[in-house]
């Protein structure tokens, strides 16, 4: 117990004593964690964006008013038989009207104009597929001889190009993000590795004396490993503050840019602040501990 306390004490004092080096390491750590978080956020935003668009573009087919109920039911069963289909929902004319009214509840004039009219909205079938790539396959059902004459319009086609572009852009950005974050992670690992190595080197004599007076490797390594972990902890704190500031100033423009899904992104981040904090902390500490352990292992081995 007393030994652990002494290791902790020594760890803090080496951190303070290596002021400039600690500052450099912490800075790199902050940059790494920030880039990681930014990538994470961009990723969340993109996914939210895609989801929002996909939500809108899920397959739906408007039915002609004269479509017989039996055919409509059969069509639904046919669609549900696909494994790629998540849900099939029949939206009646009345429901469609309700929705329309709800969507335009702020537009009194429009609503007034509807009054007295016979319901002009068609019934529709909304199909949710597990992945947008199956839409075409499923949509072919509507073209079947049996159903063709009752379907007035299948709505996915207009948006298909947009989706395709968005999906490929996301993949592209995800790849860039993963490579950038990996690169940053490796860079900070190398820099912290070298920082600790310089710290170890500058305390070469101290370490030699520690070994001389019978310090275990654990006792020698402990403070340096703790120092590495401290870079992670302090780096996380700074990067969280930076991130909060960034979100605070950027969230209005995010919301503007993405519309509703944008505010979803910011609220997602607010809801998951502890998750982001823990991920940063875990990665920060891992980078610090791994690099300092590596730096010391080389040294402790060669001088044993």
């Amino acid at each position, binding site marked *: 117990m007393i030994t652990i306390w002494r290791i902790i004490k020594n760890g803090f004092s080496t951190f303070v004593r290596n002021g400039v080096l600690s500052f450099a390491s912490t800075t790199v750590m902050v940059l790494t964690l920030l880039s990681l978080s930014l990538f994470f956020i961009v990723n969340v935003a993109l996914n939210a964006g895609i989801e929002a668009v996909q939500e809108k573009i899920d397959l739906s087919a408007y039915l002609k008013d004269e479509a017989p109920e039996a055919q409509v039911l059969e069509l639904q069963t046919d669609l549900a038989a696909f494994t790629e289909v998540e849900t099939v929902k029949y939206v009646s004319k009345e429901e469609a009207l309700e929705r329309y009214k709800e969507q335009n509840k702020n537009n009194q004039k429009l609503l007034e104009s509807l009054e007295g009219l016979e319901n002009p909205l068609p019934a529709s079938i909304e199909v949710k597929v597990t992945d947008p790539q199956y839409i075409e396959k499923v949509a072919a059902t509507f073209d079947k001889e049996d159903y063709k004459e009752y379907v007035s319009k299948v709505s996915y086609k207009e948006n298909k190009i947009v989706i395709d572009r968005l999906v490929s852009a996301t993949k592209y950005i995800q790849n860039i993000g993963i490579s950038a974050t990996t690169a940053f992670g490796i860079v900070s690992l190398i820099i912290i590795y070298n920082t600790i190595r310089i710290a170890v080197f500058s305390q070469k004599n101290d370490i030699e004396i520690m070994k001389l007076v019978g*310090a275990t490797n654990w006792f020698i390594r402990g403070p340096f490993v703790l120092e590495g972990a401290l870079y992670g902890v302090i780096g996380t704190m700074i990067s969280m503050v930076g991130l909060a500031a960034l979100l605070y100033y950027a969230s209005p423009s995010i919301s503007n840019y993405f519309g509703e899904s944008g505010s979803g992104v910011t609220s997602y981040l607010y809801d998951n602040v502890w998750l982001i904090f823990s991920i940063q902390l875990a990665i920060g500490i891992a980078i610090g501990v791994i690099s300092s352990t590596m730096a010391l292992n080389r040294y402790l081995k060669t001088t044993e």
Partner: protein
Amino acid sequence: MITLKDVSKYYTKDNPVLKDIDIEIAPREFVCIVGQSGAGKSTIVKLINKEIEPNSGDIIVGKINYAKFPKRQIPFLRRKIGVVYQDFKLLPKKNVYENVAYALEVAGVSNKEIKERVPKILKLVGLADKGTCYPNNISGGERQRVAIARALVHQPQILIADEPTGNLDPKNAWEIIDLLLKINTFGTTVILTTHNKDIVDRLQKRVITIKDGKVVKDEKVGKYEL
């Protein structure tokens, strides 16, 4: 107590530092190991302190055969062997008291016990009133006393002094040698490596002479003759 049997050590194959060395040192003995620079004196010290491994031969200290001794246990072995060096190897940012206490801290000794043992050992080496001084503010002789105090604080059975007087003037050197003799009378085995002829000749102790990596002379009461 200490046995080196057929011990050889070389860093490059053609240039051995030690060649088939045989040395036996009894408990409570005071032994001088003499020889020119590069003769292999410090290599013997490093072998006994297990800082390096021999290429062949056996080293047995007490009941421990070094060849079978696990690496992880080395720190505990070091606490049983005190070593002092020519360059003192003190921590410059710690004062005299802290330097000695550090050897105990490292070993996980409680603060209470440290407070008891350090003043006693400082008194033994004649530095009772210098505890708060820093290494840079005391004389070379005093620094070597601090190093000896630190080496002794674990109450080791063996004290190795590797050229302890190399950086000291004759008066300070003799004070250190007197201190080593005093420690020897308490029952600690003392191994002194030196190339100070004056000291060796006046000590009238066992002298092992090393030349070109070999023991060329081993006399019960020896002189410094290379």
